[in-house]
């Protein structure tokens, strides 16, 4: 199993310990985590990368709010 796949497999198991804010929250969270890790491949500085992670989280925050309201 590739490192990436292993990571996804373990994250999928561990996400069950997180609150389920809506029905697909766990799946979305794992996918989001993969995206956060993937920001490192872009060769950005720490500051820029963190800004990108913040943007990802904020965007997802909006999605979560919407999904919770539905």
């Amino acid at each position, binding site marked *: 199993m590739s*490192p990436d796949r*292993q990571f996804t497999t373990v994250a999928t198991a561990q996400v069950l310990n997180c609150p389920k804010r809506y029905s697909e929250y766990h799946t979305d969270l794992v996918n989001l*985590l993969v995206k956060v*890790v993937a920001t490192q491949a872009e060769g950005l500085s720490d500051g820029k990368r*963190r800004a990108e992670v913040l943007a990802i989280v904020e965007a997802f925050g909006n999605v979560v709010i919407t999904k919770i309201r539905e």
Partner: protein
Amino acid sequence: MRLVAAHIRNFKLLEDVRLEFSTERDRPLTVIRAENGSGKTSVLYALLWGLYGPQGLPSGAQTVRLTSSAAPVGVPVEIQVIVEFERVEGDESTSYRVIRTMLETPKGNDSFERGQNRLRLLKRTTSGFEDVPGDPNTVIAKFLPPRLKSVFFTDGDDVQRFISGEGMHGRQERVHEAIKALLGLDKMRIASEDLEHVVSKCRREAAQSAGADLEALERRLAELSDQIGRTDQELATVRTRRQAIASDRDAAQKELTELRSIGDIDAINAQIKRLEHSLAEFEERDQTLLEDMRTAISSQSASWALAGSKLLAGFDVLDKLAGRGVIPGASLEVLVDRLDLKKCICNADLSDGSTARRNVEQLLAEQRKVSEHRGHQTQTFHSARLGRAEYLAACEGKTDFVSQRKRVLAAFAANRDKIKQTGADLEVLREKRASIDDEQVRRLTDRLSNAQAKFAEASESIGRLETQLAALRERHSLAKAEYETAEKAAKVSKLLVTKRAVADDLKQLITRTLQVLEVDHVRQVSVRMNDMFMGIVGTDTAQAGAVFQGVTLTPEFDIVVRAAGEGQLDPDFEVNGASKRALTLSFIWALMEVSGQVAPRIIDTPLGMTSGGVKTRMVDAITRPPQGNSPAYQVVLFLTRSEISEIESLIDDRVGKSQTLSCNNHYPVDLVHKWDCDHPIVRVCGCTIRQFCEVCERRYDDAHSLVARGGHNG
């Protein structure tokens, strides 16, 4: 990532060498047969240079010229290495080509001028090979991280040194680095820190919007997080420092034990002193015995021993005179003495007026009338009679000269033996003492004692910091709960709360995932490593006095070798060369399997120090085709003929591609045929392990039952 082919030009003696590597799943092995000095190391270095540039080479080789020593001075030479490889991503396989080129101009005396090395990375597309966007070094580093090159590209001795050579601390570091890199754990750690940063930012934003109270709680939470971070960092630093101290302590202990095994210096000094004293006594006795001999030689006893019969004959003459009464039975002096003492020799009373006294006085008067000559004879007779009596008594009592001589000579010889033996013993002890450098013992003892004190100090710090950290974490947990309660009560905007909660969820998720991966992976690697290692050496009876029970990768990233009877073997000193290699290869193979990392494993002469069953089992283990869903892998072994010996059939079963490297420097001593080339060069031919040709045939190929292959390429 798997190598497909390489084309090396003008790298050392590799003027124009093309190599192909097996990418077959069921035949993962590529064999490059090459004797020592045939360019194996050059091929290894060429691949490293091609992929990573000069920094890819071992530190000692980075400043060495790369052109052949036969290259003419002043003429620029273009060095080029092209590596073709493929990467499997998902179900797709993509082919790449790395081309690294550099001009080097030899300047004489091994100096040179070098141009910049130019690197291109191309990817095969439907329209042919195209340059990959971005920095090729970065992309290559992503495919095959440079810090793992010593894991993937190695020679047999490096394999051995991975496990041992710098003590436990060095080994743990190497193992931890390999695990982190191959399991990609660093990426997760960075993501975790990024998310922590985002969590703090979101929380601050939420707090700011809610007012001073919440802000204050948030600041407190942030401070606690910072403190936890700093304490964690400090703890890691102290732990690392303690590891280093432990290594130093163990090294000092080992050195001291080795010195002390020569012998306890104080005990040796005491022994030397005793022996010196004994030697002095023996030497004194030697002198005494010589003096005894001298005294004995000049004694009356010696005279009687030498001339006894003559002396007795002379005594007889006087004795007969005494018998005839010609000389008196008692000397004049004796008679006078007895009269003075008033007692005869026979105890008769010679008091004044006694009859006996009168008789003696008469005898005395008669004696005085005897001639002077008789008087002298009398003197001689009485002196000789005394001497004779003493001699006879001495003979009876074994105190005569003959007995004494025997005794003193025996005693002298025995004493001389003792002197010799004691001298020899002293020499041995003095040599022993000389080999124990007192100063060094003192230094090591100090060093050990300091290290022990520092270790205790570091342990104490660790204990303190761990307690501090636990307390901080608890306070953080409480502060977080307090903050969240306050946040709810403060009616902060839902969006801000949600953002912070999501960031928190992500942070928790990655933390847990990381923990599981580390622990879980370490355990998996440990199990797989143990299986493979025991399969290779499990029945190794060459390991004197110890039977392997198993090997474990500990949570502290150390490799522990368990021996019979609950004991452990120190890989640095108690595991033989073959087993060390088996251990390292088992670890690397296990790590690769567990991590699913597909990377070429290239080993130069891996089988030194192995033979028989261990050799066969080792090659079997590292070339066995993957089972089931296990990823395909690639192993490239550079092997000499003697390494190949005994495992030809096994190699035949596993090999997908074979080549042979030869160097014309070995003509005529080892190579049979002269090449059409007037300078040293390495050539490759397509000969398998069973073949020879005009390029690679060597004088003792008969011994390996090789057959001729028609023609040659290279």
